[in-house]
């Protein structure tokens, strides 16, 4: 029991320390890349709270990400650098939109919920895509990066560590939340909402709270993204991104916080691998092919995502051991 509990903690600790040390080895471009992946990890974590934590499949999560990002650019002062206030503001905007969307879409359920969240995301997408405030397809620029006290985000390393810090904090926050009464209630809703009502939980406010919170965290990720690139674009709200982040979750393994981490990184690395000319030569141009196939393979082979691998292996070993003890009959069975 305790061993089982410990190993994930150790693993996560390892990951974070590795990330903290990375800038020592990684050059400018590497740092840039890893910061980006970490931002997506935060984004994936925010969605995990909904999908894995509460059992609500949201197919429009990019909206909150994008709103956070656009808020960061649109609300930033023209001439001087913005402060931490901007962060709070962006997160609030995302949370506010999440509150509205949640309040409405939580009236539906199942496939319809998936689709309504998508609809609201598309609404936000076209809002920035077709109206002047969003700058159309070309997006808009954040000319001066914020400064948190003495912490000038114009310097890539500062930004890197701010992102890492946010990632660790978000992770810790959710870890606490999952163990809290609130978290348990959400888990209960995920397993059997009807039962929760019969027990006396008014489930709606719980779900709404989770939805809003998740939206706020996605907004945080969006803010970081906008600050990192100093550029926002409608595609940050597109359903493609909503899809990608879902994929990260499923790839990593739903229902585990570390699944979101693993998912974000492995999704990125899968892409990098299939894009690399060294392996595929000129064929690397068609990297989507490899990515698509491997995703499908994951569905077939890893129903529980990458997190589930150790468990699956243990199972298989156990089975093989059992079969060996049974002798030959087992072999036929497997052929």
């Amino acid at each position, binding site marked *: 029991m305790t061993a089982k509990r410990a190993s994930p903690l150790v693993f996560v600790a390892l990951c974070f320390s590795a990330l903290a040390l990375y800038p020592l*080895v990684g050059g400018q*471009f590497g740092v840039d890349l890893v910061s980006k992946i970490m931002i997506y990890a935060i984004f994936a974590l925010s969605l995990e709270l909904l999908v894995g934590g509460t059992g609500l499949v949201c197919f429009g999560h990019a909206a909150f990400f994008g709103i956070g990002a656009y808020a960061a650019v649109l609300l930033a002062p023209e001439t001087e650098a913005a402060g931490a206030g901007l962060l709070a503001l962006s997160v609030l905007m995302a949370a506010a939109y999440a509150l509205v969307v949640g309040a409405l879409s939580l009236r539906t359920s199942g496939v319809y919920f998936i689709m309504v969240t998508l609809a609201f995301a598309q609404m936000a997408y076209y809002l920035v895509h077709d109206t002047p405030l969003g700058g159309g*397809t070309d997006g808009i620029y954040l000319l001066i990066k914020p400064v948190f006290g003495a912490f000038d985000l114009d310097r890539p390393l500062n930004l890197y560590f701010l992102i890492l810090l946010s990632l660790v904090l978000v992770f810790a926050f959710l870890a606490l939340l999952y163990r809290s009464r609130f978290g348990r209630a959400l888990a209960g809703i995920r397993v059997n909402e009807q039962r929760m009502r019969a027990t006396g939980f008014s489930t709606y406010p719980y779900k709404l709270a989770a939805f809003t919170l998740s939206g706020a965290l996605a907004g945080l990720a969006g803010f970081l993204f906008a600050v990192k690139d100093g550029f926002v674009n409608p595609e940050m709200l597109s359903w493609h991104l909503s899809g990608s982040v879902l*994929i990260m979750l499923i790839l990593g393994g739903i229902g585990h916080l570390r699944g979101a981490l693993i998912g974000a990184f492995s999704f990125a690395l899968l892409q990098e*691998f299939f894009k690399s000319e060294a392996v595929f030569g000129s064929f690397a141009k068609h990297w989507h092919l490899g990515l698509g196939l491997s995703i499908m393979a994951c569905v077939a082979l890893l129903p529980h995502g990458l997190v589930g691998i150790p468990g699956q292996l243990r199972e298989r070993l156990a089975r093989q051991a059992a079969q060996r003890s049974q002798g030959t009959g087992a072999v036929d069975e497997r052929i």
Partner: protein
Amino acid sequence: MNQNQHNKLCNSFPAQGSQVASQGNSAVARRSDVRCGVITRLILAAVALSTAAAMPSQAQTKEGKVKVGLMLPYTGTFAALGTAIENGFRLHLAEHGGKLGTREVELVKVDDESDPAKATDNVNKLIKRDNVDVIIGTVHSGVAMAMAKAAKDSGTILIVPNAGADAVTGPMCAPNIFRSSFSNWQPGYAMGEVMAKKGYKRVVTITWKYAAGDESVRGFKEAYEKSGGKVIKELSLPFPNVEFQALLTEIAASKPDAVYTFFAGGGAVKFVKDYAAAGLKKSIPLYGAGFLTDGTLEAQGADAEGLFTTLHYADSLSTARDQVFRLAYAKTFKMQPDVYAVQGYDAAQMLGVGLGAVKGDLSRKADFAAALKSARIESPRGSFTLGSNHNPVQDVYLRQVVGKENKVISVASKALADPGRGCKM
């Protein structure tokens, strides 16, 4: 129905394909088959990334060679344009034995897919990973904006061989940013004067809702309304949507004297065809910025016959300089050059002038800029100079489509200089 056609489902990650990096990654992947534990996977990942990141040090430009990054669209709507620009650039290079100024040139290519969403990543690849000395690119205005921003931050020299986004030589202008093509404002403004002269009183404009379109229309409107015309309706649809039917009907409804439009590439083909199919061609004359009929005439066929457009280049300039260029181009690449080829060619010329002036020492950015400003580029389009905002001061021609050619009718506007609004330099 309108979502950017260029963004693929997972455009949400930085692309990265350098040799060293990819070996690292392949190492990851070769072992990162399903069985490999997650931790190993993560560590391998870190290794891969660090090698990826470490590589610039190895990829430092070798002495003597100047590293030029070509960031152009090789796929998507503007693929053909990207190729033409590269050809033009290579042609000039070839004419000078692969040298610009005194130094050998090494080319690094990146496909920007005309996707603004990926622009920042792509340009970072060139600047941060490949450490290029000069960037040439690109076609799409939105992408060019991202490049200009990155160039401004990093101080890398940028020469824009097509994208006309006004801001590049406006608010975003910088000592290290130049343009060998035009500003969206220029052809539009010239056409404004032309159509006012032709005596049209009420005009409808239609374009894609993105920087290039908006600015072209703005330029047109400025000149046209200054000389007494009236733009009664400004129609637009999201880039790169090509379902024009509803808007064509709208044009018919408002019965203008003429229509001014800005479309390019595939969209231009589709628009001209639909415009004719809707029967508007015979009732309401269609005018446009030159890209409407450049490199698209084959596909447009008879529907384009007789259209008037304004641009800083045409197929039948019949100047000696132009003929030499066209001949050489046709010989080397087995196809006719277009305005994009010219712009690529001139980008190379400009770089050559600059490099020559600083004796190949690109750290002397001030001298580089000064040399370009004082220089007179002998372009196939006719010689031009650079304005204070580093945008060409050039003649804009009025052309008409005759058969498969954009024939010159007259010079619509002589030595037209972009106002470079918002440029502090």
